[in-house]
């Protein structure tokens, strides 16, 4: 299908079905139940899942294939967002030109940054990218935000104001980012019994874009170009002595992943027309590294899983507070209840980073291939169990 082999086609279809039915899958609990806070099927979070999925897929093309670990990819995410918001401010709220410009601007920056950084490899490359991203952050946060020349609106963040020109904006179009008139916030709520599901236009736009870029990433993985990238990771010396300079391949991979990050940044702004400098900070760059490693570096689906996992934790675990905990453990005797809540307290709410950190360590130590390896091991275990049961049966049957 679409030039993919059977295994990749299956993967693509599975991902397509999962993203299509995400509003159902992520909302398994009735809206009024105590477990409703574990529901992740609200538009804002679902959008974040796919946007960061796109970001991580792109990052994986660089890190997973070539092994070059960039610590500055959040810069491209931020640049994409700023570019998109400027399109909103100057021209139109239509998201198509905004997202296209976000990709173009981010690619140009990636080309410059990659050209310089790829002169070094290993830790020096990582440090160069980190330095570059921090410079971008400083520019966005303060330097490019002064009364004479205000490109980024500093701490407040860039947003659309009523007196902005918006040349192509007409009455009748939504006063929010829209796709040819369809507002990104348009949501259809479906109530079935006690359950409630939301279908959001913005989410589905992001989901379609993610499917397209996911498909492209599969093609890149299977292409001669992808093989060269894996060759760079495996042995640069041999590649050099095979008559090919690794540099242009690595640079192309860098620009592609920068473009993916710009796309994610543009979509982020399209969901919420705001761009802040904190989006470019080094912690944001670190987050996408975590997503990729957690999900499975160099695997196709891993980065998407990692992105979903981390965003779920960030948004769901952080909402559990002491009141919720007391409610859960109300069945315990008073002293016990307080004690249990005291033990769990540091790991939830504001302490969700702690839980994530422990999980990350466990995954890296016991599942170096990330969640994907976990899934594969589970699959094998189930298969081998099924088989051994069959062989057991086979052994028993002749005896009868």
């Amino acid at each position, binding site marked *: 299908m679409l030039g993919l082999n059977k295994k990749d086609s299956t993967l693509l279809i599975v991902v397509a079905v999962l993203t299509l039915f995400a509003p159902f899958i992520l909302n398994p609990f009735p809206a009024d139940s105590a477990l409703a806070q574990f529901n992740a099927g609200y538009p804002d979070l679902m959008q974040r899942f796919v946007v960061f999925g796109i970001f991580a897929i792109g990052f994986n093309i660089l890190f997973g294939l070539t092994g070059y670990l960039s610590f500055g990819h959040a810069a491209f995410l931020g640049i994409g967002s700023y570019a998109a918001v400027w399109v909103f401010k100057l021209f139109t709220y239509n998201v198509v030109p905004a997202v296209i410009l976000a990709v173009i601007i981010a690619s140009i920056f990636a080309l410059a940054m990659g050209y310089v950084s790829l002169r070094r490899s290993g830790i020096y490359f990582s440090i160069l990218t980190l330095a570059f991203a921090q410079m971008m952050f400083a520019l966005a946060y303060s330097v490019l935000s002064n009364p004479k020349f205000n490109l980024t609106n500093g701490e407040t963040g860039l947003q659309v104001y009523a007196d902005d020109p918006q040349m192509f904006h007409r009455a009748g179009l939504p006063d929010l980012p829209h796709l040819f008139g369809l507002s990104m916030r348009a949501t259809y709520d479906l109530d079935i019994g006690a359950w409630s599901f939301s279908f959001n236009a913005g989410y589905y736009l992001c989901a379609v874009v993610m499917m397209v870029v996911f498909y492209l990433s599969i093609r890149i993985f299977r292409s001669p170009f992808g093989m060269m990238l894996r*060759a760079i990771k495996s042995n640069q010396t041999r590649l*050099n002595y*095979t*008559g090919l300079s690794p540099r242009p391949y690595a640079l192309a991979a860098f620009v592609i992943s920068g473009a993916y990050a710009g796309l994610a940044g543009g979509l982020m702004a399209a969901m919420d027309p705001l761009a802040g400098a904190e989006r470019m900070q080094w912690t944001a760059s670190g987050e996408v590294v975590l997503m990729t490693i957690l999900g499975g570096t160099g695997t196709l689906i891993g980065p998407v899983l990692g992105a979903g996992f981390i965003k779920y934790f960030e948004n769901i675990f952080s909402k559990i507070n002491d009141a919720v905990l007391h409610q859960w453990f109300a069945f315990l005797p008073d002293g016990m209840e307080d004690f249990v809540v005291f033990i769990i307290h540091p790991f939830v709410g504001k302490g969700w980073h702690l839980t994530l950190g422990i999980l990350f360590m466990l995954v890296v130590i016991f599942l170096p291939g990330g969640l994907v390896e976990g899934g594969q091991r589970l699959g094998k275990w189930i298969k081998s169990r099924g088989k051994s049961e069959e062989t057991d049966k086979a052994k028993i049957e002749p005896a009868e």
Partner: protein
Amino acid sequence: MGILEVKDVSKRFGGLKALSDVNLSVAENTVHAIIGPNGAGKSTLLNCFVGKLIPDTGSVMFDGQSVLGRKPYEINQMGISRVFQTPEIFGDLTVMENMMIPVFAKRDGHFQMNAIGDMMKEKDIVEAAEAMLVDMNMADKRHMHAASMSRGDKRRLEIGMCLAQEPRLLLLDEPTAGMARADTNNTIDLLKEIKDQRDITIAIIEHDMHVVFSLAERITVLAQGTPLVEDTPQNIKGHPKVREAYLGETA
């Protein structure tokens, strides 16, 4: 004139004079061995041929063109392939993919951005790589991860990868170092086969005299950064200077 002409090459590392006034000519379609005791400058000399080092003085000409100042991949494109002391292969890739990369490099010649096509659907590449695997007797290993093979098989693959580029000069840096006797003999047989079947010049650096005397047509003996003698294997064996500098140690 030889295919590789080395004139007055010197190289200094700080206070150490690694090479001084090396003159060497490798004739086309011969097997030329460079031998010498440890620290004689054999590897330094080889590194000057492939662009890893640039000599302080002198010139290195390949087929009438200077290789000095060119990058390793540019020199490779001129027709010089190199086999390393420890096999340098793409360990994370399969044997088939390992073989496909030099074939791609040979066909494309430089960076090509083919990010959408399926590499297994590049018929000419797959066929050429498969033919080379058959030549190397490795067709049954094509789906193996290259890193999981034995030292001898890795060497065989590396030599195959070099040949897939159809080089005019093949440089071998101690190709049997650290190998078991059986693997060493296999490698000798393989190199003999290559020599007989292909129009190729081979320059080999080797410690193992058994390998040198079973392959080489000319031998240059290097000692303390200068060539001592250059002659046929028969004459080298009995040469008093060589005995003194090199063979004497073991004889």
